[in-house]
């Protein structure tokens, strides 16, 4: 047994040695949670880069998203991680930078293509250092089944009153489930629910910053009202929505059984591939006609450099390319709905993606309220928001109780104005 295994190992090692060409070539390995992007990287991105840099070979090696953070952290600690690592927004990456596991990229050629706002999610709290090259942001809103809307002769709503009137109408008709969302996986309720409709209440960045500064509380009307609205969603969700998972919701919508889908822009590519009807999108409804609208335009993914990588130069060459408009255009069009953060014009081909990205001009963009600083302690505000949002929609907790619990949890460790270091994994 032992010898045969040894032989196998030796054989594999020889194979590996043989397959690498004679000329000195550097191989860069990318760690990412985007299993979904494997084909894009293999077929479009990597060939485009390798054509320009034949001396550098790039391998995209994704991990299942749920295991990514813990697997990456273990590999960085032990020194077996890849050269380039996909960066989660905010604290997860900041903690790695603080542990000196991610390199400082502030001076990387190409970084000047990004505005300070675009870099926020991957910069130190004071904004002085940046450690990942921003790749994409995602937007929230609602998608709808155009065929169903035509059949019922209804229009996308602008205000909240119109929104609920529309839901009533769809429910009365009975052909379609009005809203395709479940609470089983909890994050749908928080991300596509609370963070989707919330910015219109707390006025986007204004409220988010006030919350961090301690000038507002989660029990204030601006923060509690979104919960009250969410509590009204229950009757419009599918039968047994409490046990409906995220893939269930996706399938419910793409199989044409639901009319409206509280969405993230990342769904565009798969939905268009899977649905046999046309899909439209509308903004989170405002409270009164004519109100300024706010949308969640959330930085989602970036690429950083493993500080311990032996291939620093090659990795920086690659990162500079990732910071270029060329990469932005390839990625944005290969993964419609992942919108570039770059400050240069990027041409999008997908019509639905174009429609959604235009919201950036119409409304005030903001990021998800729980991501910056406020989820650094225990209890974790983001996770608590998941549970609270699901509870509120399930009707097992009142909006008031949910808001109070969240604020109490936050108060137990967060003192506005005092610096809280991002916690290392």
């Amino acid at each position, binding site marked *: 047994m032992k010898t045969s295994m040894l032989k196998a190992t030796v054989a594999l090692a020889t194979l590996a040695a043989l397959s690498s060409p004679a000329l000195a070539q550097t191989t860069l390995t990318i760690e990412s949670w985007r299993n979904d992007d494997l084909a894009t990287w293999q077929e479009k991105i990597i060939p485009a880069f390798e054509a320009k840099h034949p001396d550098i070979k790039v391998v995209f090696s994704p991990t299942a998203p749920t295991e990514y953070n813990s697997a990456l952290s273990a590999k960085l600690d032990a020194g077996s991680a890849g050269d380039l690592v996909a960066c989660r927004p905010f604290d997860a990456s900041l903690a790695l930078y603080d542990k000196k596991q991610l390199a400082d990229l502030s001076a990387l050629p190409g970084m000047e293509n990004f505005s300070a706002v675009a870099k926020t999610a991957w910069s130190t709290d004071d904004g002085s250092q940046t450690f990942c090259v921003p790749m994409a942001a995602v937007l929230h809103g609602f998608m709808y089944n155009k065929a169903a809307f035509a059949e019922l002769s209804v229009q996308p709503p602008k205000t909240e009153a119109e929104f609920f009137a529309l839901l009533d109408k769809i429910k009365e008709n009975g052909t379609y489930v009005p809203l395709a969302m479940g609470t089983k996986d909890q994050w749908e309720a928080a991300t596509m629910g609370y963070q989707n409709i919330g910015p219109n209440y707390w006025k986007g960045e204004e409220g988010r910053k006030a919350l961090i500064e301690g000038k507002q509380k989660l029990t204030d009307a601006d923060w509690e009202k979104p919960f009250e609205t969410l509590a009204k969603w229950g009757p419009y969700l599918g039968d047994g929505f409490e046990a409906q998972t995220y893939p269930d919701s996706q399938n419910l919508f793409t199989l044409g059984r639901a009319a409206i889908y509280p969405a993230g822009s990342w769904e565009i590519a798969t939905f268009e591939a899977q649905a046999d009807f046309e899909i439209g999108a509308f903004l989170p409804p405002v409270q009164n006609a004519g109100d300024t609208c706010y949308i969640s335009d959330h930085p989602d993914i970036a690429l950083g450099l493993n500080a311990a990588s032996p291939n620093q130069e090659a990795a920086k060459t690659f990162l500079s390319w990732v910071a270029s408009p060329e990469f932005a255009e390839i990625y944005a069009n290969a993964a419609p709905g992942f919108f570039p953060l770059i400050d240069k014009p990027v041409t999008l081909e997908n019509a639905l993606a174009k429609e959604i990205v235009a919201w950036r001009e119409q409304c005030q963009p903001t990021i998800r309220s729980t*991501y910056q600083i406020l989820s650094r302690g225990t209890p974790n505000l983001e996770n608590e928001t998941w549970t609270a949002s699901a509870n509120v929609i399930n009707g097992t907790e009142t909006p008031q109780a949910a808001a109070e619990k969240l604020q109490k949890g936050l108060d137990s460790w967060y003192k506005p104005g005092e610096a809280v270091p991002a916690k290392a994994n």
Partner: protein
Amino acid sequence: MTDRPKARPRWHIAVFLAPALLVYTVVMLVPLMQTLLLALENVRDGQRVFVGLDNFRMLFGDPRFSEGFWNALANNVYFFVLHMLIQNPIGISLAALLSVPRLRGVAIYRTALFLPTILSFVIVGFLWKLLLSPLWGVAPNLLGAVGLKSLFAPWLGQEAYALTTVSLVSIWQFVGIPMMLIYAALITIPNEVIEAAECDGITGLKQFFKIKLPLILPTIGLVGVLTFVGNFNAFDLIYAMQGALAGPNFSTDILGTYLYRIFFGFQLQAGDRYMGAAVATAMFVIILIGVCFYLFVIQRRMRRYQM
């Protein structure tokens, strides 16, 4: 054994033990101890320092940790009780049925009954979420077919039923383990014993309870303690079915999922190795108490028949 000369060095004992002890100690025990010892440390002002039992004080005293811990422990006890009351009796019964003499097709039954146990958690999780799904699920359709649709509820999403439902799925998956162990014990009973019983007219159920059960009691004890250890270390099934947050509202949170969130972190929650190690140590102590109870109380009192 006593008649062997005491003075002779018994090297063979060392030879028998050495390989297992070596691999186990180096690859498993030392890394685990390194981790558990972190329970006595924490980070203060950016420095890693020794804090004594502070982490445990926090775990049991600070409601931010203790509420989650006690909730997980209570759920875990319930999870274990259900396994003891349902999984093990079913497992023993199946093994008893399989070992009925002159039964045909045992190999087929044995394979079929064990099938769920060899499945990965990914499959089991996907499978039961699909079967119990209110949207496409088999459960609502089957109940609907017999006019009992009103009996269906989205159990996995309801605080009152989720834990019971997940426990039943776990029982479905793992019933093969007690079945195999008991079956292995039952077939080791020498035929002479059975034949003697049959000559005395002791057959069927009576034979099982009077003759076989006392002979396999040590194995039943073993099954009990393995169920205890397995249940208090359980993690994967809940994780696959209910996610790391063990919803709804933490109603399916058991010690394994609680530990996972603290130690490895989840989403924006960063992993905390120090508090995580404290949770792991607490779990370890609970399991150690159970195993010691088995080793020193149950196993020593059990009458063992050599066959």
